[in-house]
Protein backbone atom coordinates (compact mmCIF):
# COMPACT_ATOMS: atom_id res chain seq x y z
CA UNK A 1 0.00 0.00 0.00
CA UNK A 2 1.34 3.41 -0.93
CA UNK A 3 2.04 5.71 2.00
CA UNK A 4 0.37 9.12 1.69
CA UNK A 5 3.76 10.82 1.29
CA UNK A 6 7.17 9.31 0.61
CA UNK A 7 8.82 10.84 3.70
CA UNK A 8 10.59 14.23 3.71
CA UNK A 9 12.66 13.70 0.56
CA UNK A 10 11.83 16.45 -1.91
CA UNK A 11 13.07 14.30 -4.77
CA UNK A 12 10.73 11.44 -3.89
CA UNK A 13 7.84 13.86 -3.43
CA UNK A 14 8.40 15.41 -6.85
CA UNK A 15 8.76 11.94 -8.38
CA UNK A 16 5.38 10.93 -7.00
CA UNK A 17 3.82 14.19 -8.19
CA UNK A 18 5.19 13.87 -11.72
CA UNK A 19 4.08 10.23 -12.03
CA UNK A 20 0.62 11.48 -11.01
CA UNK A 21 0.77 14.08 -13.79
CA UNK A 22 1.92 11.40 -16.25
CA UNK A 23 -1.12 9.25 -15.47
CA UNK A 24 -3.42 12.21 -16.01
CA UNK A 25 -1.63 12.96 -19.30
CA UNK A 26 -2.16 9.32 -20.33
CA UNK A 27 -5.83 9.64 -19.45
CA UNK A 28 -6.24 12.77 -21.56
CA UNK A 29 -4.37 11.29 -24.54
CA UNK A 30 -6.56 8.17 -24.26
CA UNK A 31 -9.75 10.25 -24.19
CA UNK A 32 -8.56 12.15 -27.28
CA UNK A 33 -7.78 8.90 -29.12
CA UNK A 34 -11.14 7.43 -28.13
CA UNK A 35 -12.95 10.51 -29.39
CA UNK A 36 -11.05 10.36 -32.67
CA UNK A 37 -11.69 6.64 -33.19
CA UNK A 38 -15.41 7.16 -32.51
CA UNK A 39 -15.85 10.23 -34.70
CA UNK A 40 -13.59 9.08 -37.55
CA UNK A 41 -13.35 5.26 -37.38
CA UNK A 42 -11.13 5.06 -40.47
CA UNK A 43 -8.36 7.22 -38.94
CA UNK A 44 -6.70 4.26 -37.19
CA UNK A 45 -7.44 1.71 -39.93
CA UNK A 46 -3.76 1.09 -40.73
CA UNK A 47 -2.73 0.58 -37.10
CA UNK A 48 -5.67 -1.71 -36.37
CA UNK A 49 -4.96 -3.73 -39.50
CA UNK A 50 -1.29 -4.12 -38.51
CA UNK A 51 -2.26 -5.29 -35.00
CA UNK A 52 -4.64 -7.81 -36.56
CA UNK A 53 -1.75 -9.14 -38.65
CA UNK A 54 0.26 -9.73 -35.47
CA UNK A 55 -2.39 -11.61 -33.50
CA UNK A 56 -4.22 -13.48 -36.28
CA UNK A 57 -1.34 -15.91 -37.09
CA UNK A 58 -1.43 -17.04 -33.43
CA UNK A 59 -5.14 -17.74 -33.74
CA UNK A 60 -4.68 -19.49 -37.09
CA UNK A 61 -1.92 -21.75 -35.76
CA UNK A 62 -3.88 -22.66 -32.63
CA UNK A 63 -7.02 -23.17 -34.71
CA UNK A 64 -5.04 -25.66 -36.83
CA UNK A 65 -4.11 -27.59 -33.66
CA UNK A 66 -7.64 -27.70 -32.24
CA UNK A 67 -9.23 -28.69 -35.54
CA UNK A 68 -6.62 -31.43 -36.03
CA UNK A 69 -7.34 -32.79 -32.54
CA UNK A 70 -11.08 -32.58 -33.23
CA UNK A 71 -10.58 -34.30 -36.58
CA UNK A 72 -8.67 -37.18 -34.97
CA UNK A 73 -11.55 -37.82 -32.56
CA UNK A 74 -14.28 -37.68 -35.21
CA UNK A 75 -12.08 -39.62 -37.66
CA UNK A 76 -11.68 -42.47 -35.17
CA UNK A 77 -15.45 -42.44 -34.70
CA UNK A 78 -15.95 -42.86 -38.44
CA UNK A 79 -13.70 -45.96 -38.61
CA UNK A 80 -15.58 -47.53 -35.71
CA UNK A 81 -18.78 -47.78 -37.72
CA UNK A 82 -17.35 -48.09 -41.23
CA UNK A 83 -19.25 -51.11 -42.62
CA UNK A 84 -22.63 -49.87 -41.51
CA UNK A 85 -21.88 -46.36 -42.76
CA UNK A 86 -20.74 -47.71 -46.10
CA UNK A 87 -24.01 -49.50 -46.73
CA UNK A 88 -26.00 -46.43 -45.74
CA UNK A 89 -23.95 -44.16 -47.96
CA UNK A 90 -24.43 -46.47 -50.96
CA UNK A 91 -28.21 -46.27 -50.58
CA UNK A 92 -27.99 -42.50 -50.21
CA UNK A 93 -25.79 -42.22 -53.28
CA UNK A 94 -28.29 -44.07 -55.43
CA UNK A 95 -31.01 -41.65 -54.38
CA UNK A 96 -28.73 -38.65 -54.93
CA UNK A 97 -27.90 -39.69 -58.49
CA UNK A 98 -31.58 -39.75 -59.35
CA UNK A 99 -32.09 -36.33 -57.74
CA UNK A 100 -29.07 -34.96 -59.59
CA UNK A 101 -30.46 -35.95 -62.97
CA UNK A 102 -33.73 -34.27 -62.07
CA UNK A 103 -31.89 -31.16 -60.95
CA UNK A 104 -29.88 -31.01 -64.18
CA UNK A 105 -33.10 -31.10 -66.16
CA UNK A 106 -34.52 -28.30 -64.04
CA UNK A 107 -31.38 -26.17 -64.50
CA UNK A 108 -31.61 -26.57 -68.24
CA UNK A 109 -35.27 -25.63 -68.24
CA UNK A 110 -34.51 -22.66 -66.01
CA UNK A 111 -31.80 -21.44 -68.36
CA UNK A 112 -34.14 -21.60 -71.30
CA UNK A 113 -36.87 -19.74 -69.43
CA UNK A 114 -34.44 -17.05 -68.29
CA UNK A 115 -33.12 -16.61 -71.80
CA UNK A 116 -36.69 -16.20 -72.93
CA UNK A 117 -37.23 -13.52 -70.27
CA UNK A 118 -33.93 -11.76 -71.11
CA UNK A 119 -32.89 -11.76 -67.45
CA UNK A 120 -29.47 -10.30 -66.85
CA UNK A 121 -27.50 -12.38 -64.36
CA UNK A 122 -24.76 -10.73 -62.37
CA UNK A 123 -21.70 -12.86 -61.89
CA UNK A 124 -20.77 -13.30 -58.28
CA UNK A 125 -17.03 -13.13 -58.01
CA UNK A 126 -15.51 -14.64 -54.87
CA UNK A 127 -12.64 -12.41 -53.76
CA UNK A 128 -11.03 -14.79 -51.28
CA UNK A 129 -11.79 -17.76 -49.04
CA UNK A 130 -10.52 -18.05 -45.48
CA UNK A 131 -11.20 -19.63 -42.13
CA UNK A 132 -12.80 -18.01 -39.10
CA UNK A 133 -10.05 -18.19 -36.48
CA UNK A 134 -11.37 -16.15 -33.57
CA UNK A 135 -13.88 -13.63 -32.31
CA UNK A 136 -14.38 -10.77 -29.88
CA UNK A 137 -14.63 -12.37 -26.46
CA UNK A 138 -15.65 -9.62 -24.06
CA UNK A 139 -17.19 -6.85 -26.14
CA UNK A 140 -20.89 -6.07 -26.72
CA UNK A 141 -19.82 -5.75 -30.38
CA UNK A 142 -19.86 -9.15 -32.05
CA UNK A 143 -17.15 -9.70 -34.65
CA UNK A 144 -15.06 -12.60 -35.89
CA UNK A 145 -11.50 -12.73 -37.20
CA UNK A 146 -11.09 -14.11 -40.72
CA UNK A 147 -7.76 -15.49 -41.99
CA UNK A 148 -7.64 -13.48 -45.24
CA UNK A 149 -6.75 -9.81 -45.64
CA UNK A 150 -5.92 -7.07 -48.12
CA UNK A 151 -3.13 -9.27 -49.49
CA UNK A 152 -5.88 -11.53 -50.87
CA UNK A 153 -7.93 -8.61 -52.19
CA UNK A 154 -10.23 -8.16 -49.18
CA UNK A 155 -11.45 -4.57 -48.65
CA UNK A 156 -13.47 -3.00 -45.86
CA UNK A 157 -17.22 -3.30 -46.48
CA UNK A 158 -17.21 -6.55 -48.46
CA UNK A 159 -19.87 -9.16 -47.61
CA UNK A 160 -18.76 -12.50 -46.15
CA UNK A 161 -20.68 -15.74 -46.49
CA UNK A 162 -20.17 -19.45 -45.94
CA UNK A 163 -21.74 -22.37 -47.83
CA UNK A 164 -24.49 -22.40 -45.17
CA UNK A 165 -25.42 -18.75 -45.28
CA UNK A 166 -24.53 -15.13 -44.64
CA UNK A 167 -21.88 -14.38 -41.98
CA UNK A 168 -21.46 -10.60 -42.06
CA UNK A 169 -19.30 -7.89 -43.57
CA UNK A 170 -15.66 -6.82 -43.27
CA UNK A 171 -15.02 -3.86 -40.91
CA UNK A 172 -11.20 -3.99 -40.48
CA UNK A 173 -8.70 -5.38 -42.94
CA UNK A 174 -5.02 -6.12 -42.28
CA UNK A 175 -2.65 -7.67 -44.79
CA UNK A 176 -3.08 -11.22 -43.47
CA UNK A 177 -6.38 -11.12 -41.64
CA UNK A 178 -9.59 -9.15 -41.40
CA UNK A 179 -12.33 -8.51 -38.89
CA UNK A 180 -15.93 -9.36 -39.78
CA UNK A 181 -18.99 -7.75 -38.18
CA UNK A 182 -21.33 -10.74 -37.66
CA UNK A 183 -24.99 -10.55 -38.65
CA UNK A 184 -25.81 -11.24 -34.98
CA UNK A 185 -24.34 -7.83 -33.98
CA UNK A 186 -26.94 -5.22 -33.12
CA UNK A 187 -25.52 -2.71 -35.58
CA UNK A 188 -25.72 -5.11 -38.53
CA UNK A 189 -29.01 -4.62 -40.36
CA UNK A 190 -29.67 -6.81 -43.40
CA UNK A 191 -32.53 -6.26 -45.87
CA UNK A 192 -34.15 -9.65 -46.31
CA UNK A 193 -37.26 -11.51 -47.36
CA UNK A 194 -39.06 -14.64 -46.27
CA UNK A 195 -38.27 -17.51 -48.65
CA UNK A 196 -41.89 -18.70 -48.43
CA UNK A 197 -43.96 -15.93 -50.02
CA UNK A 198 -41.15 -13.41 -50.55
CA UNK A 199 -42.43 -10.81 -48.06
CA UNK A 200 -39.75 -8.14 -47.41
CA UNK A 201 -38.39 -8.07 -43.83
CA UNK A 202 -35.47 -6.51 -41.93
CA UNK A 203 -32.98 -8.62 -40.01
CA UNK A 204 -31.09 -7.06 -37.10
CA UNK A 205 -28.70 -8.83 -34.72
CA UNK A 206 -29.47 -9.17 -31.02
CA UNK A 207 -25.91 -9.44 -29.76
CA UNK A 208 -26.33 -12.98 -28.40
CA UNK A 209 -25.96 -15.10 -31.51
CA UNK A 210 -29.53 -14.68 -32.74
CA UNK A 211 -31.20 -12.15 -35.03
CA UNK A 212 -34.42 -10.18 -34.74
CA UNK A 213 -36.75 -10.16 -37.78
CA UNK A 214 -39.29 -7.39 -38.43
CA UNK A 215 -41.68 -7.19 -41.41
CA UNK A 216 -41.54 -3.95 -43.39
CA UNK A 217 -45.34 -3.75 -43.46
CA UNK A 218 -47.07 -3.34 -40.11
CA UNK A 219 -49.96 -5.67 -39.48
CA UNK A 220 -50.34 -9.40 -39.12
CA UNK A 221 -47.22 -11.27 -38.04
CA UNK A 222 -46.12 -13.00 -41.26
CA UNK A 223 -43.64 -15.41 -39.67
CA UNK A 224 -44.06 -19.07 -38.89
CA UNK A 225 -41.69 -21.26 -36.91
CA UNK A 226 -39.14 -22.84 -39.24
CA UNK A 227 -39.35 -20.09 -41.87
CA UNK A 228 -36.06 -19.44 -43.67
CA UNK A 229 -35.09 -15.85 -44.41
CA UNK A 230 -32.80 -14.92 -47.34
CA UNK A 231 -31.15 -11.66 -48.36
CA UNK A 232 -33.19 -9.53 -50.75
CA UNK A 233 -30.28 -7.70 -52.36
CA UNK A 234 -31.86 -4.34 -51.50
CA UNK A 235 -29.22 -1.71 -50.77
CA UNK A 236 -26.73 -3.50 -52.98
CA UNK A 237 -24.21 -4.61 -50.33
CA UNK A 238 -25.28 -8.22 -49.83
CA UNK A 239 -26.02 -10.38 -52.88
CA UNK A 240 -29.63 -11.61 -53.09
CA UNK A 241 -30.82 -15.11 -52.16
CA UNK A 242 -28.15 -15.88 -49.57
CA UNK A 243 -29.79 -17.76 -46.66
CA UNK A 244 -29.62 -15.79 -43.40
CA UNK A 245 -31.51 -17.45 -40.57
CA UNK A 246 -34.28 -19.82 -39.52
CA UNK A 247 -37.15 -18.62 -37.29
CA UNK A 248 -37.27 -20.29 -33.87
CA UNK A 249 -39.70 -18.11 -31.93
CA UNK A 250 -42.39 -15.53 -32.68
CA UNK A 251 -42.88 -12.36 -30.66
CA UNK A 252 -45.62 -9.73 -30.89
CA UNK A 253 -44.83 -8.23 -34.31
CA UNK A 254 -41.77 -10.10 -35.52
CA UNK A 255 -39.67 -13.17 -34.84
CA UNK A 256 -36.36 -14.32 -33.39
CA UNK A 257 -34.19 -16.45 -35.64
CA UNK A 258 -30.92 -18.37 -35.47
CA UNK A 259 -28.34 -17.68 -38.23
CA UNK A 260 -27.90 -20.66 -40.55
CA UNK A 261 -24.13 -20.10 -40.77
CA UNK A 262 -22.77 -20.71 -37.27
CA UNK A 263 -19.42 -18.85 -37.17
CA UNK A 264 -18.14 -21.30 -34.55
CA UNK A 265 -18.63 -24.30 -36.86
CA UNK A 266 -17.91 -22.79 -40.25
CA UNK A 267 -14.99 -24.50 -41.92
CA UNK A 268 -14.39 -21.72 -44.41
CA UNK A 269 -15.91 -18.41 -45.34
CA UNK A 270 -15.97 -16.67 -48.71
CA UNK A 271 -15.46 -12.93 -49.13
CA UNK A 272 -17.37 -11.56 -52.09
CA UNK A 273 -17.27 -8.24 -53.88
CA UNK A 274 -20.19 -5.95 -52.96
CA UNK A 275 -23.19 -6.86 -55.10
CA UNK A 276 -23.37 -3.36 -56.53
CA UNK A 277 -19.99 -1.62 -56.12
CA UNK A 278 -21.49 1.83 -55.51
CA UNK A 279 -23.18 0.44 -52.38
CA UNK A 280 -19.84 0.53 -50.59
CA UNK A 281 -19.72 4.33 -50.78
CA UNK A 282 -23.38 4.78 -49.86
CA UNK A 283 -23.25 2.54 -46.78
CA UNK A 284 -24.88 4.67 -44.04
CA UNK A 285 -23.55 2.87 -40.93
CA UNK A 286 -20.48 4.42 -39.27
CA UNK A 287 -18.70 1.08 -38.94
CA UNK A 288 -18.39 0.48 -42.67
CA UNK A 289 -16.63 3.50 -44.10
CA UNK A 290 -15.25 3.18 -47.57
CA UNK A 291 -11.46 2.54 -47.63
Amino acid at each position, binding site marked *: *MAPPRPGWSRRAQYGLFFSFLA*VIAGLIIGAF*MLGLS*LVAPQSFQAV*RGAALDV*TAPISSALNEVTSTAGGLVSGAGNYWDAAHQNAKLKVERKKMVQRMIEAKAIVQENRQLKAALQLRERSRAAVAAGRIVGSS*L*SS*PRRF*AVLSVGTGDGVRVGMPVRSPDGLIGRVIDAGRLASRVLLISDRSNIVPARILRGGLPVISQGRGDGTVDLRPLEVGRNPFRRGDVVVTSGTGGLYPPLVPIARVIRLDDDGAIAVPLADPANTSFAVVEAPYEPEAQAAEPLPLADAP
Partner: protein
Amino acid sequence: MVRAALSSGRRIGQGPRAGAAAIPAVSVIVAALLSALPIVSTSGWYPDFGFLVLIAWRLLRSDPWPAWWAAPLGLANDLIIGAPLGMSVVLWSATMLLLDLIDRRTMWRDYWIEWGLAALLLLLGESFEWWVAGLTGPVGRFGSILPPLLIAIFAFPIAAWLVGRLDRWRLGR
Protein backbone atom coordinates in the same frame (compact mmCIF):
# COMPACT_ATOMS: atom_id res chain seq x y z
CA MET B 1 5.30 -14.14 4.14
CA VAL B 2 6.64 -14.59 7.69
CA ARG B 3 6.19 -18.32 7.52
CA ALA B 4 8.02 -18.45 4.19
CA ALA B 5 10.93 -16.47 5.69
CA LEU B 6 11.18 -18.81 8.66
CA SER B 7 11.35 -21.97 6.56
CA SER B 8 14.89 -23.31 6.31
CA GLY B 9 14.92 -24.05 2.57
CA ARG B 10 16.42 -20.70 1.61
CA ARG B 11 19.52 -20.79 -0.49
CA ILE B 12 22.24 -18.20 -0.46
CA GLY B 13 22.13 -15.77 -3.35
CA GLN B 14 18.43 -16.20 -3.95
CA GLY B 15 16.87 -13.00 -5.25
CA PRO B 16 14.64 -11.46 -7.87
CA ARG B 17 14.61 -13.04 -11.32
CA ALA B 18 16.17 -11.26 -14.26
CA GLY B 19 13.70 -8.70 -15.63
CA ALA B 20 11.56 -8.90 -12.51
CA ALA B 21 10.47 -5.28 -12.98
CA ALA B 22 8.97 -6.01 -16.40
CA ILE B 23 7.21 -9.26 -15.51
CA PRO B 24 3.93 -7.66 -14.26
CA ALA B 25 3.49 -5.62 -17.46
CA VAL B 26 4.38 -8.63 -19.63
CA SER B 27 1.86 -10.76 -17.78
CA VAL B 28 -0.87 -8.19 -18.52
CA ILE B 29 -0.04 -8.35 -22.25
CA VAL B 30 -0.02 -12.15 -22.17
CA ALA B 31 -3.44 -12.10 -20.49
CA ALA B 32 -4.72 -9.72 -23.19
CA LEU B 33 -3.36 -12.12 -25.83
CA LEU B 34 -5.69 -14.82 -24.48
CA SER B 35 -8.32 -13.20 -26.70
CA ALA B 36 -6.30 -14.37 -29.71
CA LEU B 37 -7.24 -17.96 -28.81
CA PRO B 38 -9.32 -19.60 -31.55
CA ILE B 39 -12.57 -19.34 -29.61
CA VAL B 40 -15.65 -18.12 -31.43
CA SER B 41 -18.05 -16.73 -28.85
CA THR B 42 -21.58 -15.80 -29.88
CA SER B 43 -22.53 -13.97 -26.68
CA GLY B 44 -19.29 -12.22 -25.68
CA TRP B 45 -19.49 -13.15 -22.00
CA TYR B 46 -15.77 -13.75 -21.51
CA PRO B 47 -14.04 -11.42 -19.03
CA ASP B 48 -11.58 -8.80 -20.26
CA PHE B 49 -8.50 -10.81 -19.28
CA GLY B 50 -6.02 -7.94 -19.52
CA PHE B 51 -8.08 -5.69 -17.23
CA LEU B 52 -8.59 -8.54 -14.76
CA VAL B 53 -4.85 -9.15 -14.43
CA LEU B 54 -4.12 -5.38 -14.28
CA ILE B 55 -6.51 -4.98 -11.32
CA ALA B 56 -5.09 -8.08 -9.63
CA TRP B 57 -1.52 -6.71 -9.85
CA ARG B 58 -2.47 -3.22 -8.72
CA LEU B 59 -4.46 -4.51 -5.73
CA LEU B 60 -1.61 -6.81 -4.75
CA ARG B 61 1.08 -4.11 -4.87
CA SER B 62 1.07 -0.33 -5.22
CA ASP B 63 4.11 -0.41 -7.52
CA PRO B 64 3.87 -3.26 -10.04
CA TRP B 65 4.85 -0.70 -12.73
CA PRO B 66 5.14 3.10 -12.92
CA ALA B 67 1.54 4.31 -12.95
CA TRP B 68 1.76 5.91 -16.39
CA TRP B 69 2.52 2.50 -18.01
CA ALA B 70 -1.24 1.91 -17.80
CA ALA B 71 -1.68 4.07 -20.93
CA PRO B 72 0.63 2.13 -23.32
CA LEU B 73 -0.56 -1.17 -21.82
CA GLY B 74 -4.14 -0.10 -22.49
CA LEU B 75 -3.26 0.84 -26.07
CA ALA B 76 -1.74 -2.63 -26.60
CA ASN B 77 -4.91 -4.20 -25.16
CA ASP B 78 -7.14 -2.14 -27.47
CA LEU B 79 -5.13 -3.25 -30.49
CA ILE B 80 -5.20 -6.90 -29.43
CA ILE B 81 -8.90 -7.20 -28.59
CA GLY B 82 -10.05 -4.88 -31.39
CA ALA B 83 -11.85 -2.35 -29.19
CA PRO B 84 -12.12 1.29 -30.32
CA LEU B 85 -8.59 2.67 -29.83
CA GLY B 86 -8.30 4.61 -26.58
CA MET B 87 -10.99 2.73 -24.64
CA SER B 88 -8.62 0.72 -22.45
CA VAL B 89 -6.15 3.65 -22.33
CA VAL B 90 -8.78 5.77 -20.58
CA LEU B 91 -10.17 2.95 -18.46
CA TRP B 92 -6.79 1.64 -17.27
CA SER B 93 -5.32 5.11 -16.52
CA ALA B 94 -8.48 6.01 -14.60
CA THR B 95 -8.19 2.74 -12.68
CA MET B 96 -4.62 3.54 -11.62
CA LEU B 97 -5.66 7.04 -10.49
CA LEU B 98 -8.71 5.77 -8.63
CA LEU B 99 -6.72 3.11 -6.79
CA ASP B 100 -4.04 5.66 -5.85
CA LEU B 101 -6.76 7.83 -4.32
CA ILE B 102 -8.36 4.86 -2.57
CA ASP B 103 -4.95 3.84 -1.17
CA ARG B 104 -4.77 7.19 0.65
CA ARG B 105 -8.18 6.71 2.25
CA THR B 106 -8.30 3.07 3.31
CA MET B 107 -7.09 2.23 6.83
CA TRP B 108 -6.74 -1.49 6.29
CA ARG B 109 -7.19 -4.09 3.60
CA ASP B 110 -8.39 -7.64 3.73
CA TYR B 111 -9.45 -10.23 1.21
CA TRP B 112 -13.11 -9.20 1.14
CA ILE B 113 -12.37 -5.49 0.71
CA GLU B 114 -10.05 -6.32 -2.21
CA TRP B 115 -12.69 -8.49 -3.87
CA GLY B 116 -15.27 -5.74 -3.33
CA LEU B 117 -12.94 -3.15 -4.86
CA ALA B 118 -12.25 -5.46 -7.79
CA ALA B 119 -16.00 -6.01 -8.28
CA LEU B 120 -16.55 -2.24 -8.27
CA LEU B 121 -13.77 -1.69 -10.82
CA LEU B 122 -15.06 -4.51 -13.03
CA LEU B 123 -18.54 -2.94 -12.89
CA LEU B 124 -17.02 0.41 -13.93
CA GLY B 125 -15.08 -1.32 -16.72
CA GLU B 126 -18.06 -3.23 -18.10
CA SER B 127 -20.31 -0.13 -17.98
CA PHE B 128 -17.65 1.95 -19.73
CA GLU B 129 -17.22 -0.71 -22.42
CA TRP B 130 -21.02 -0.85 -22.84
CA TRP B 131 -21.19 2.94 -23.11
CA VAL B 132 -18.39 3.10 -25.71
CA ALA B 133 -19.98 0.28 -27.73
CA GLY B 134 -23.22 2.26 -27.59
CA LEU B 135 -21.49 5.17 -29.33
CA THR B 136 -20.42 2.95 -32.25
CA GLY B 137 -23.85 1.41 -32.85
CA PRO B 138 -26.92 0.08 -31.06
CA VAL B 139 -26.31 -2.17 -28.02
CA GLY B 140 -28.58 -4.11 -25.67
CA ARG B 141 -30.10 -2.94 -22.39
CA PHE B 142 -27.74 -1.97 -19.57
CA GLY B 143 -28.81 -5.18 -17.82
CA SER B 144 -27.11 -7.18 -20.56
CA ILE B 145 -23.72 -6.48 -18.92
CA LEU B 146 -24.78 -8.47 -15.84
CA PRO B 147 -23.80 -12.02 -16.96
CA PRO B 148 -20.28 -11.04 -18.14
CA LEU B 149 -19.86 -8.90 -14.99
CA LEU B 150 -20.71 -11.83 -12.69
CA ILE B 151 -18.37 -14.11 -14.63
CA ALA B 152 -15.56 -11.55 -14.33
CA ILE B 153 -16.16 -11.05 -10.58
CA PHE B 154 -15.94 -14.78 -9.97
CA ALA B 155 -12.89 -15.04 -12.22
CA PHE B 156 -11.07 -12.39 -10.16
CA PRO B 157 -9.95 -14.69 -7.30
CA ILE B 158 -8.34 -17.00 -9.89
CA ALA B 159 -6.51 -14.05 -11.48
CA ALA B 160 -5.48 -12.77 -8.02
CA TRP B 161 -4.13 -16.21 -7.05
CA LEU B 162 -2.15 -16.54 -10.30
CA VAL B 163 -0.75 -13.02 -9.91
CA GLY B 164 0.23 -13.74 -6.29
CA ARG B 165 2.11 -16.89 -7.37
CA LEU B 166 3.78 -14.99 -10.22
CA ASP B 167 4.80 -12.19 -7.85
CA ARG B 168 6.46 -14.63 -5.42
CA TRP B 169 8.18 -16.40 -8.31
CA ARG B 170 9.57 -13.19 -9.84
CA LEU B 171 10.88 -11.99 -6.45
CA GLY B 172 12.53 -15.35 -5.86
CA ARG B 173 10.70 -16.12 -2.64
